[in-house]
């Protein structure tokens, strides 16, 4: 059984082609079922995101599997094979494992370390598993990839640090306030940039969103979008006092929130910090506001600098993440090898035991003179001899260094002892409980 991967990604194909081969917008379940109906694709998973469409199969015959997958892609998407075959990349066995692990770790993403991909890999597997399209090999492969994604996330800073201004602002707010629910946000200005920021905060579950703008109608329009409420421009100063987070982005030529305004807002018995995000150029908030004790003031350049720092920090973490991927690929490989020898080992043991038993029964007449206790002893001794004979070959078969060597050795053992039929039957019976009927 081999692992085989065929697909297109942002590294190999332009977006027009990726769109045409995209599965995510269509019924992924039906697609994976259709694919798994092909004889060479015994197990199949389809991973489709906006940056990639990848087909993972477990197959006895990778060459035939490749043909069938290409045919399937062409049929399913109605795209002539010639149009996409030059853009396909393919991997098998160890390389396919490494590829999936890197994808799950976010190492193959357009923005390295972005967190969504792990969820998408999980979903892709779940869809295939729900339709009984996966067997033990892909199940183990994908579950290991979830582990890789988790390890990379917890043990490296690859996914850490926001790489967009909006995320950087939300991350800072989290660091200051902990959870964002229940925190009230004041949005000053209803232009494009504040709209984006407000929507971003809204999706991150902040409490109340209050919008104010010089033109009341646009404030109301934005408030409606983020289920907030609009207030008049003249209430700006008092609204600052009630807010935890202020997002400002007006086109005003000079600061609209002065040191005195903000000082008045945070004086008195206010004990909460105030986080002011000034997205406007020229700035809406006087720089000296940042020196007020409980106020954290960040402008566009500050956030941009954070993003920049995060991007380079992620770059530095890539090596550590690749190292984890390497470790897990090795671990998965040794699991596969130990498992690859199992059918032959089991068949060998059954064969030896059958010979021992039949000899023992054949000698039954000659041994009838012995007492039951002695007969038991003979049984025990022969059993131990067989056991001991098998210990070494069993260990050796399981410990072979790589897949090709192992395939050669198991094949040799199968042939020497005439085990081929029996071994492949055992192989199937191991897989059967998980495989589709």
């Amino acid at each position: 059984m081999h692992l085989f991967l065929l697909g297109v990604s942002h590294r190999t194909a332009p977006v027009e082609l990726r769109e045409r081969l995209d599965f995510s917008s269509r019924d992924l379940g039906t697609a994976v079922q259709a694919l798994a109906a092909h004889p060479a694709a015994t197990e199949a998973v389809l991973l489709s995101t906006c940056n990639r469409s990848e087909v993972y199969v477990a197959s006895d015959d990778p060459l035939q599997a490749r043909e069938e997958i290409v045919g399937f892609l062409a049929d399913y998407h109605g795209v002539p094979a010639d149009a996409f075959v030059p853009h396909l990349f393919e991997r098998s066995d160890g390389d396919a494992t490494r590829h999936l692990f890197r994808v799950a770790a976010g190492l193959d993403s357009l923005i390295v370390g972005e967190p969504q991909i792990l969820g998408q890999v999980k979903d892709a597997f779940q869809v295939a598993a729900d339709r009984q399209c996966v067997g033990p090999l892909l199940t183990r492969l994908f579950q290991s990839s979830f582990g890789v994604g988790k390890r990379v996330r917890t043990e490296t800073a690859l996914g850490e640090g926001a790489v967009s201004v909006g995320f950087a602002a939300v991350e800072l707010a989290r660091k200051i306030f902990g959870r964002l629910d229940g925190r009230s946000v004041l949005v000053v200005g209803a232009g494009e940039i504040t709209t984006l920021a407000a929507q971003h905060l809204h999706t991150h579950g902040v409490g109340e969103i209050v919008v104010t703008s010089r033109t009341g109608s646009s404030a109301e329009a934005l408030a409606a979008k983020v289920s907030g409420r609009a207030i008049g421009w003249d209430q700006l100063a008092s609204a600052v006092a009630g807010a935890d987070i202020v997002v400002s982005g007006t086109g005003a030529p000079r600061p609209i929130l002065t040191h005195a305004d903000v000082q008045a807002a945070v004086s008195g018995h206010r004990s909460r910090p105030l986080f002011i995000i000034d997205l406007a150029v020229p700035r809406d908030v006087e720089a000296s506001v940042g020196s007020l004790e409980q106020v954290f003031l960040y402008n566009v350049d500050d956030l941009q600098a954070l993003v920049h720092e995060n991007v380079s920090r992620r770059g530095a973490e890539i090596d550590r993440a690749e190292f984890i991927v390497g470790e897990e690929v090795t671990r998965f490989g040794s699991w596969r090898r130990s498992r690859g020898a199992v059918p032959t080992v089991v068949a060998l043991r059954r064969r030896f035991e059958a010979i021992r038993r039949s000899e023992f029964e054949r000698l039954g007449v000659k041994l009838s003179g012995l007492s039951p206790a002695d007969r038991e002893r003979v049984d025990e001794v022969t059993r131990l001899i067989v056991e001991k004979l098998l210990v070494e070959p069993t260990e050796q078969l399981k410990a072979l260094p790589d897949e090709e060597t192992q395939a050669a050795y198991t094949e040799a053992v199968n042939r020497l002892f005439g085990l081929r039929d029996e071994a492949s039957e055992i192989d199937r019976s191991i897989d059967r409980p998980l495989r589709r009927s």
Partner: protein
Amino acid sequence: VNLLTLALYAAAGVAYAIHFARRSPTVGRAATTLLLLGALTHTFAIGMQTMEVRHVPFANPSRAVSTFVWLLALSYLYLEIAADERAMGVFILPVMVGLQVIPAAYPGVENADPVLDSPWFWVHVSSLLFAYASFALAGVLGVTYMLQFKEIKKKHLGFFYTRLPSLSILDSMNLRAVVIGWAFLTVGVVVGLIWTAQARQVAPGDPNLQAMWVGDPKVFIALVTWAIYSFALVSRPTLGWSGRRAAWLSALGFVVVMLNFLPVSYFVETSHTF
């Protein structure tokens, strides 16, 4: 046993530091396990001493320090498990290891004055030690708050920013630790007063008992401590002293506590043995 405890705490401290720097969950779990083992051997040591002298050992400074470290280990473990947050370990463990050196080096002899043999006295000492352990946690939370506050304020998000919990969590954990510490401090001081009054009736001629009043450095600093933490609690709702100022107060309070606990115990003439 004291040395083994110290070694385990030191190992846990190193593991917490590695965990903090590299953020490997495995090392983090190892750190917690080492600390748990340290706390267990420590419990065993204190249990043995208790059996030996028939009360919890704290009638001499070294043993009191040991008991304090033990309470701190338990409180910290509680905090770690309750908040599911290991980042504080790297700050707490050095305090524990530093203090635990004292009992490991000078075990001291438990030589309790019979006049101390009263349940009031034991309540007095255990409440105070527990209060000090809470203040130690609060102090560490305060210091970490200030470190992170500074990074966010200066817009230089670096080492601590990526490793510590959010400011609001640090602040609320700090508040909780101060409330608990303050309650036990109050109980400890009040019980101390009651006990002194009672003991004076039993042994009117004891010069130590005569000296136990506000003029005694130990008692005086304890009252200063009480004042600091009371202020920390009152200023929060009335003056809005939370966050950075509360953090600063709890760090200051802990410095005073440590001052009272160590130099005053060992070097200043006082009616208290520690």
